[in-house]
């Protein structure tokens, strides 16, 4: 497998308090890496570092190397990086627009005006997000009419429409019921064919269900990263075992 993201000796601070300590990890192309850990473990910081969204925090400081496809991300134009590294947030966040306009939002912003081209991109993105069949007859209705799970898949489609390589999921199912969760998970598993996925989740079982590999963070340190199946059957570290079995966290 090809290394998609390479992280070396990464340290991150907010002000004086460290959030990530000396992190070394590789993320492979077309895998789903699930990231688990209690709150304040640095897993969200880790995720938001990959599309440099952390930089919005004024006290953010970073040292170390993060490469995507062999290129240092701090040297790539930040808009290009974020186009390449899409992100789906914890709360479904449809814009107060129609379903079609929501998906076409990103491409339009990047300068695509041709209606047919936009339609083509939106259809592809909605299909990939497993929403097309449910909305194809009502693309012009408001996105707010969709259910929570559909809204979240709409947000996935919106991210896909920008044609990224990597998709970051930040607890995408935290507000969803089990059936909607299952649909989002199904979408994620199929997406890895074309995309590299990093999923941060508080739901340990979800990490086990969809992950190829799983990383366990604790207090800003990467405790271990391994094949998901191995991690959930025979973890290397006692703390991982405790967390997975629900002894703390």
């Amino acid at each position, binding site marked *: 497998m090809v290394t998609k993201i390479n992280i070396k000796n990464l340290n991150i601070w907010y002000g004086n308090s460290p959030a990530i300590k000396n992190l070394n990890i590789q993320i492979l192309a077309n895998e789903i890496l699930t990231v688990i850990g209690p709150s304040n473990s640095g897993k969200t910081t880790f995720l938001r570092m990959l*599309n440099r*969204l952390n930089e*919005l925090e*004024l006290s953010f400081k970073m040292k170390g190397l993060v490469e995507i496809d062999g290129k240092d991300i701090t040297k790539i134009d930040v*808009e*290009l990086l*974020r*186009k390449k590294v*899409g*992100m789906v*947030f914890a*709360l479904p*966040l449809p*814009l*107060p627009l129609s379903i079609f306009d929501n998906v076409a*939002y*990103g491409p339009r*912003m*990047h300068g695509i005006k041709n209606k047919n081209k936009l339609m083509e991109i939106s259809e592809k993105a909605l299909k990939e997000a497993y929403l097309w069949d449910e909305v194809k007859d009502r693309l012009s209705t408001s996105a707010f009419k969709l259910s929570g799970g559909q809204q979240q898949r709409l947000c996935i489609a*919106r*991210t896909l429409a*920008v044609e990224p390589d990597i998709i970051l999921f930040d607890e995408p199912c935290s507000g969803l019921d089990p059936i909607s969760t299952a649909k989002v998970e199904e979408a994620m598993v199929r997406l890895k064919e074309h995309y590299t996925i990093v999923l941060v989740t508080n739901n340990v079982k979800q990490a086990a269900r969809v992950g190829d590999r799983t990383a366990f963070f604790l207090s800003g340190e990467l405790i271990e990263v391994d094949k998901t199946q191995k991690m959930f059957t025979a973890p290397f570290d006692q703390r991982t075992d405790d967390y997975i079995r629900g002894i703390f966290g």
Partner: protein
Amino acid sequence: MRKVKEFIIEKLIFLSGLASIFFVVLIFLFLMKEGLSVFKTISFPDFIGGNKWYPISEPAQLGIKPLILGSLLVTLGAAIISIPIGIGCAIYIAEVAPKKLKEFLKAGIELLAAIPSVVLGFVGMVTLVPFVKSIFHLPTGLTAISGSIMLAFMAMPTIVSIAEDALYSVPKIYKEGALALGATHWQTIYRVMLPASSSGILAAVMLGIGRVIGETMAVMMITGNAAVIPTSILQPVRTLTATIAAEMGEAVVGSEHYFALFAVGIVLFVISFAINVTADIFLHGERK
């Protein structure tokens, strides 16, 4: 004993609560009683639509159309100047400025709000008025545009601070969502932040305009106070507020003129009330 204390405090608070509405109602009733008396001698359409305001001629001519148009012209001019600058300033403070500069600018805006209008009027009179006179080659610099420029300064603090609040209260996740799609900073502001805060910004604009239309001292000092129907922004005009302030002292109590000034007050009240209600509707729209 505790119950008695509780009872008294409750009633006191209740009375304080009523006081505000009580005074408003009293003022309103008084205004109505005095103002509506003018319609015993002049019809409503003649009052609103009359072209001539000669309150002390014989018989008195009490048409307030020039005054209404004067007020609207000055307000429109002030709005055209202050809205773009005010919103631009709010965007800069809320989104672009580094933290220290932001604090500095906010303090500056507050300071601008703290300048008494008579001082602004005075400064305008000795600096802006000659400037307008020479730049447009006018016989006098006491014109509607001088008033508009001066009032734009007075509307700015209101517009900036409320619009900045509106922008600030846009949920962070909206901004992050747009940035995560690869939007540039300006695209995020223009396509996400501004639409999301539009109701608050509209309210800011309305309140700014409300401030302008009710302003008296500065306009009285620098708009020239000629009660004629304005045909250009480079002419002297007289506003509703300035008319009341200038003439109330010399109007004979109980005369037609006196009642007419109260009626002007009613017109002003209705306009400000409409503007405030509109602003309130926008603000409530935002909360939903």
